């Protein structure tokens, strides 16, 4: 085997690395191209539609605020899928964990409305994360201890969680019990502590949350004494503080970006993350080097569930401030495309969450201006992920083949390499 020059090795490293960004970008472009045909069939101009889509997402401070709002839950559910997947736990239950997390956050805010903000807000956030964790406990346990496929168990629990949220906002908060089969006496009155419907409203929705549970807006943070005493005199501060959209932008997207950095750190800079990734890549090899595989899978699943639960908490505390029926439909499922377009890397997930958030934020403007329905966005998303899956698979196969050739190893070993690095590698 010839020894390679240093330039060659660097070049190969560079192309491999940029390729992992090239695949999703090409996939997204191809998705826009194909969806353009569908828009033409609808009778609209695709270019006009896409221009209105992006001006609706980035065209004004208000549009950017909306994009940030849409992006935040996607970052958390995307991270949930990324961390789980890289650890060998494919969490399809982010939707359910998200709903349960949101319910928990609202429950805390409704039950303890008198708490001061410094106590109530963190309590709500923690409750949402904990509830997401609780909702993944059973699938995590079944996968770790009994080897039952997590895809099915997490998926089935989604439907249970969605029905629970439908029920919880339709029964008055702390009122009469539930009567069964025409009985006179209410039974299971304790259940009412878990209900959330606003008794003063005829519609199924939870009470509007108290101010103390709101995610502080960037405007209110910029107007605190500390910030004004530091920056109050600078001219750019005077300009920035005048932007009305600052009142809509909250701390939630900032926390989401912090979560991305934190998860990156855990995944790539800690022993926990190293163990988790080794189990995700090749459980047999991980076992061989002394990793407790069931325990690692269990812990990784809990981290994944917590992240998905936080997605729900961020949405109700930062954006909607109450739960209405289907208040955040599909944001949990959309964590999967976010993760895959993001090449299963936390920073990639951040980029693709921004992209998907922008699609959602701009789709309404697109519908208003060009009458192209919002659902087109979901087709763009689906096509992008299909192309990205294909591109990534082909890319990985090429890398494996190249490695096999350059190392001159025999076919049997090559097949083993291929098995260990099918997708996540």
């Amino acid at each position, binding site marked *: 085997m010839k020894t390679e020059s240093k330039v060659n090795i660097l070049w190969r490293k560079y192309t491999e690395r940029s390729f992992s960004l090239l695949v999703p970008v090409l996939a997204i472009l191809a998705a826009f191209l194909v969806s353009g045909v569908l828009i033409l069939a609808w009778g609209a101009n695709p270019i006009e539609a896409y221009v209105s889509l992006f001006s609706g997402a980035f065209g004004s401070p208000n549009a950017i605020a909306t994009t940030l709002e849409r992006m935040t839950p996607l970052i958390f559910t995307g991270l949930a899928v990324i961390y789980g997947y890289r650890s060998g736990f494919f969490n399809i239950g982010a939707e359910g964990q998200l709903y349960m997390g949101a319910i928990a956050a609202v429950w805390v805010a409704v039950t303890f409305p008198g708490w001061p903000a410094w106590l109530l807000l963190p309590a709500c956030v923690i409750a949402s994360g904990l509830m997401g964790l609780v909702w993944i406990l059973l699938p995590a346990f079944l996968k770790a201890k*009994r080897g*039952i496929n997590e895809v*099915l168990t997490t998926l*089935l629990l989604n439907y249970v969680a969605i*029905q629970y949220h439908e029920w919880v906002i339709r029964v008055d908060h702390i009122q009469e019990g539930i009567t069964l*089969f025409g009985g006179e006496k209410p039974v299971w009155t304790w259940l009412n502590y878990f209900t959330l419907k606003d008794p003063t409203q005829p519609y199924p929705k939870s009470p509007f949350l108290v101010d103390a549970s709101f995610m502080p807006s960037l405007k209110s943070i910029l107007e605190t004494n500390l910030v004004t005493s530091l920056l109050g005199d600078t001219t750019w501060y005077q300009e920035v503080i005048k932007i009305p959209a600052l009142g809509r932008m909250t701390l939630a997207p900032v926390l989401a970006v912090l979560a991305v950095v934190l998860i990156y750190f855990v995944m790539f800079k800690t022993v926990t993350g190293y163990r988790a990734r080794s189990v995700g890549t090749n459980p047999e090899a991980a076992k061989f080097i002394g990793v407790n595989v069931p325990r690692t899978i269990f812990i990784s699943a809990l981290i994944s569930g917590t992240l998905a639960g936080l997605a729900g908490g961020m949405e109700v505390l930062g954006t909607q401030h109450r739960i209405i029926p289907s208040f955040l439909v599909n944001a949990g499922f959309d964590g999967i495309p976010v993760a895959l377009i993001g090449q299963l890397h936390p920073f990639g997930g951040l980029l693709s969450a921004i992209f998907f958030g922008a699609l959602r934020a701009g789709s309404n403007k697109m519908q208003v201006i060009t009458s192209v329905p919002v659902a087109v966005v979901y087709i763009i998303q689906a096509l992008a992920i299909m192309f990205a899956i294909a591109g990534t698979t082909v890319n990985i196969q090429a890398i494996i083949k190249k490695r096999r050739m350059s190392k001159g190893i025999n076919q049997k070993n090559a097949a083993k390499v291929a098995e260990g690095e*099918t997708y996540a590698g």
Partner: protein
Amino acid sequence: MLDDLGQVFSNVEFYMAIVRMTAPLLIAAMGSLLAERAGVVTFSMESMMLVGTLGGIIGSGLTNNVWVGLLLAIIFGALIGLMYAVWAVTIGAHQIVTSTALNLGALGLTSILYALVFTRGAEVIENVITVPKLAAWKVPLLGDIPFIGQVFFNQLPLVYLGYLLIPLIWYILYRTTWGLKIRAVGEHPHAAETVGISVAKVRYLTIIFSGMMSGLAGAFLSIGLLGSFQENMTAGRGFIAYTAIVFGKWQPIGVALGTLLFGAADALQLRIQAIDPRIPYQALIAFPYIVTLIALMAVVGRASWPASSGTPYKREEV
């Protein structure tokens, strides 16, 4: 309460509902069993059923002929099957990941195509379009048997297809060379390839068959039961059918029993909803999913999957 339940159980309507709720699951699960035995994870059934519901509505709505609806449902399902096969077999992509992408995509695709064909406006939900739906067909002689005839042989024609699929799939799997090839591909693709079986061809054909049957199962929901379309109409029934395959340990009889269990749970929750509206109906809707979950925990062990399940097969280049 017990009286009410007794009334449910003594009513022939309840047993008819069980058969009605089981049939779409049965058709989809039986149709996908071949692909499963060939080593392909058919988690994409949900998307195939979903496009089937739409195919049925479009075909039946545009031509006023339910049979065209069924045909279109089969074609739609087969197209998604073909797409899935390209990704899962030719490209060799991760099958559950690809399935999840297809399931999400089908959701958007069906609602936009429905709007494109019928309403062209934003208020899809308000304008419910009703189209001609399948009529029940009583089987001669068998349909006259008291109770059993009423329950099993006075149903939609698609239900009978479901019955026929059980022995048919069993026969194909265990009594034909085709079945032998399918099982060989699922258990040991390399060995199958060395004796001249094309792994790709077997997997392509079985996946497309899975798409066709799942499409029909979807049409059962739209033009069989309702005669109209709703967004996300299958509501996870494709996943339940998939669970039935796992539950039945990839054996035709077991899979059929699995679909029956979930169909019965579905029928029961509908009846209980009708008894007393004050019972939280959401708990009842969640009931079949909980039953499925418990069934998974109770029955499924580790070692029942086809050996090559979910693993893309790549012919080794020398």
